[in-house]
């Protein structure tokens, strides 16, 4: 039996690991009834307060122009709305407006078509995604109230992001797909960290670390085999979780349109990013768990190394500063790769390269630790360090 086979068998016979693979599918797929409510709440997230809006008067008759002037003067929304002459929405957005509404049609024909242009920003991505829907609802309402009779209205939304104009459907497809991809990251990172740590903790708890390290196996092979086993099993866990999540979405009536926005190259880039991050997390978890003496202790390591992966996700919601510098920070590879269709692939490539380098540095440290006495006396070393610290205090 080869080492990889042994490691995978050890993991796959652990009840906790079986639960890790089976439970996510059951839990996520049964969460569909609750998801509808959450989706409604997220729609409310965007607020129009302080939003600077321009209505472009372009190709409308006099009666319609008068109607629009009335709407602007009487509107009671918390937006600032200006009526401007012109048809070029993107140039108006460049002047500092958040939303530009280009209204065509005629009040006499009782028919309008409105094109809403939203100035998007990666730094405020959540708002970018929420504004078109909210603004669309507000404009529909305003125009409907302005007319005395029922009017026929069509509203189409666009987002101007990174010097490119996206239809809102296109952008939301990217956003939804990216959300699934970001979730996939967590579905794989947490099991990977946990399993990597467990593989080291189990060796010590089962009194086999001495025997393993005395065998003629290179420390590099021990580290890589254990990392590979943890990654294989965590991929199974991730597949189960993503499967369950997809079932939940489809049962909630939501579709996840990957469509053509993510090209094959983007998906490959993302997979490599995911792998680089998972590899980094597994090795880091194994390195820290060398100081634990039990499986339970090792499991506690998993959140420590996996939780920082949430930081880029929160950063995306509150403001992700796009730069090559931030791209080199650990845990950034996946976020930059899911944003690749929007911001280009350069950031993702830099981020993945940095993440792999960081993973290799941690792996080199881990291999050094395995070669040293710390591998044998890990928990004792930690106790000694704590004692020394206490003495110094």
């Amino acid at each position: 039996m080869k080492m990889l086979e042994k490691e995978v068998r050890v993991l796959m016979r652990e009840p906790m690991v079986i639960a890790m693979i089976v439970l996510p599918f059951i839990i996520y797929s049964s969460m569909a009834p609750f998801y509808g409510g959450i989706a409604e709440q997220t729609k409310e997230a965007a607020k129009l307060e302080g939003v600077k809006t321009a209505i472009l008067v372009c190709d409308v008759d006099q009666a319609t122009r008068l109607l629009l002037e009335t709407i602007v003067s009487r509107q009671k929304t918390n937006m600032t709305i200006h009526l401007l002459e012109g048809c070029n929405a993107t140039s108006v957005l460049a002047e500092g407006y958040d939303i530009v509404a280009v209204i065509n049609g005629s009040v006499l024909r009782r028919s309008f078509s409105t094109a809403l242009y939203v100035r998007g920003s990666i730094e405020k991505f959540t708002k970018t995604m929420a504004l078109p829907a909210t603004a669309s609802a507000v404009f529909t309402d305003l125009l409907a109230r302005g007319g005395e009779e029922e009017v026929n209205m069509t509203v189409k939304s666009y987002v101007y992001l990174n010097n490119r104009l996206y239809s809102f459907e296109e952008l939301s497809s990217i956003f939804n797909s990216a959300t699934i991809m970001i979730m996939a990251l967590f579905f794989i990172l947490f099991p990977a960290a946990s399993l990597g740590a467990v593989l080291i903790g189990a060796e010590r708890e089962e009194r086999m670390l001495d025997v393993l390290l005395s065998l003629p196996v290179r420390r590099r092979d021990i580290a890589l085999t254990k990392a590979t086993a943890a990654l294989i099993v965590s991929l199974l866990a991730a597949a189960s979780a993503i499967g369950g999540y997809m079932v939940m979405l489809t049962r909630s009536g939501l579709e996840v349109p990957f469509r053509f926005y993510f090209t094959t190259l983007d998906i490959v880039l993302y997979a490599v990013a995911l792998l680089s991050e998972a590899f980094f997390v597994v090795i880091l978890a194994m390195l820290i768990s060398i100081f634990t003496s039990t499986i339970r202790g090792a499991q506690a390591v998993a959140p420590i190394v996996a939780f920082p992966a949430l930081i880029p996700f929160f950063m995306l919601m509150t403001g992700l500063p796009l730069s090559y510098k931030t791209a080199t920070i650990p845990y950034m590879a996946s976020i930059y790769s899911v944003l690749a269709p929007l911001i280009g692939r350069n950031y993702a490539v830099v981020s993945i390269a940095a993440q792999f380098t960081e993973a290799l540095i941690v792996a080199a440290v881990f291999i050094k630790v395995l070669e040293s006495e710390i591998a044998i006396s890990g928990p004792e070393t930690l106790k000694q360090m704590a004692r020394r610290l206490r003495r110094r205090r």
Partner: protein
Amino acid sequence: MIVIVDRVEKVYPGGVRALRGISFSVREGEIFGLVGPNGAGKTTTFRIIASLIKPTSGKVIVDGVDVVAHPFEARKRIAYVPEEVGGYRRLTGLEYLKFIVTTFLRARGASREEVEKSVDEAVELTGLPYEKLSKTKMGDYSKGMKRRLQVAWVLAVKPKLAILDEPTTGLDVEASYELRHLIKEYSKKYGMTALISSHNMFEVETVCDRVALIKNGLIIDEGAPREIVEKYDAVNLEDAYMKILSSKKTMHS
């Protein structure tokens, strides 16, 4: 000499001096016993020879290989069974044997057939029913059964040097007897050198060709069991050991 331990000192990071410059050598095919009280430095010595930890100073050569400078090469020649009996609780005994024997022998360039033959041999050496070995996970094995598995793989791979730290601990009388005989038999038949530690003086006297008495990280005497017994005018090795310890105490006082 297949094992040369030359003025080995070991000071642990906490400042504990586990070994204070011990030296001994072991001939090929010899069974060498390391005897001493708890904390004397037996396990530290074994771990240094097995290249698990590094000495603070001194040299250890196994089959012509410096274990500190070339640990990987040294490990191909050494099979080590630690004092604490362990085993993968989620693997069956058979899977455990397959894993360890394959890992050890493949590193030495053994063929698939040779590996399979050694696994079969290890299975036989355990003395356990095949059904138990192939179906029951090690988590359900007794300490004694795990110990038998460990010694079985070490003998089956026929290393240049077998390091057995208290190999019969946890075994019943019958199993201990069988194991002692197996170690002797394999040493003679295959020229396997063995380093053994034990608290059981009878075991050391029966199995070992030579012994070293270790205390506080120092070797206080060394020789064939019979020579030591005669030297101290003792009834047996245990008696000699007690006499040595008491004479050392008198010297110190």
